[in-house]
């Protein structure tokens, strides 16, 4: 059991509000970055993040103190992502404006401006685009292996799939990403 996790659970038992606050702060980046790279845009990533934490908060009372939180958080994040369905009809339109008169699109655009200042944008952008276009399971194994640095057996456990499948999905995912980045001319010159 991780000491920080143990501490959080201990605080949670005494003060629910503070415990949940600490848990959220500790794992928000972890959950959001997986969600962001899986969903491919921040709007869906925020939806997903919220779903993940609802699920965590709901079942935290039943969580056994002797286990670590991270594998559990990881598993919920992965499962929620893989089950994530976009229901365009029920989500708000991007053109809709809030009461300040700025549209969601504007909000998104302004927050992404900072990224365009980076010099290695081309590689990063091409990689994002390539990962985004992968089938869901290929996308998830690539994220877990290369972004999060998980070992093959950890990926198998987290996604509840055989080790051989992890390998096959990684092979295919990398092959597709390579073809796509090559097309973007990333490694030329």
């Amino acid at each position, binding site marked *: 059991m991780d000491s920080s996790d143990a501490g959080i659970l201990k605080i949670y038992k005494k003060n*629910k*509000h503070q*415990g*949940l*606050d600490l848990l*959220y*702060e500790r794992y*928000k*980046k972890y959950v*959001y*970055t997986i969600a*962001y*790279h899986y969903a491919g845009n*921040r*709007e*869906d990533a*925020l*939806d997903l*993040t*919220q*779903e993940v*934490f*609802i699920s965590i*908060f*709901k079942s935290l009372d039943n969580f056994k103190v002797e286990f670590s939180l991270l594998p559990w958080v990881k598993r919920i994040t992965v499962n929620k992502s893989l089950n994530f369905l976009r*229901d365009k009809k*029920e*989500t*708000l339109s991007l053109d*809709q*404006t*809030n*009461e*300040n008169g700025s549209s*969601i699109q504007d*909000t998104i655009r302004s*927050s992404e401006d*900072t*990224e365009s200042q980076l010099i*290695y944008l081309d*590689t*990063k952008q091409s*990689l994002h685009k390539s990962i985004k276009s992968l089938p869901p399971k290929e996308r998830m194994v*690539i994220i877990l292996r*290369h*972004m999060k640095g998980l070992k*093959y057996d950890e990926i198998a456990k987290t996604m509840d799939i055989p080790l051989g499948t992890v*390998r096959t999905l*990684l*092979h295919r995912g*990398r*092959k597709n*990403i*390579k073809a796509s*980045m*090559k097309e973007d001319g*990333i*490694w030329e010159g």
Partner: protein
Amino acid sequence: MECKLDVTLLQDLLEGVIDPIEKLFVEEHLKTCKQCRKELAELKLLFWDLNDKANYDTSLPTELEHIKGALLEEFAAIPTKNTTAIVLDVHRKNARSAGMFLDYMPGVKASNELVKKGVRTAPSALGKVSKALVKGTRLLLAE
């Protein structure tokens, strides 16, 4: 002549998950196959980019704070005043912020669900507030 080597072996070689005998075989093969040497060189570039943490740098949007606020209120509201005061307070706060907040917060669907579920389990004071919030969001979504 087209090379017949299973190129996934080259990925496994770079990942260090290749069977030792296959490794010897692949290394021998690379000595004589230009095509596979080129493929391996490209794969090295790919792995470099795939494993480069900078490629995954993500800024955390401020909405994450709003989500936290909403979730904490739903799951662990702080009862600091008497019930009536809480209802009025939260109600006033919701009336002020709900429109703006729900307007741009992604996951309105999920939060509605949450609020609805909250109604079932929350103490009566919060239940009333939640119902009011649900009504509020319905109105917002109606257009």
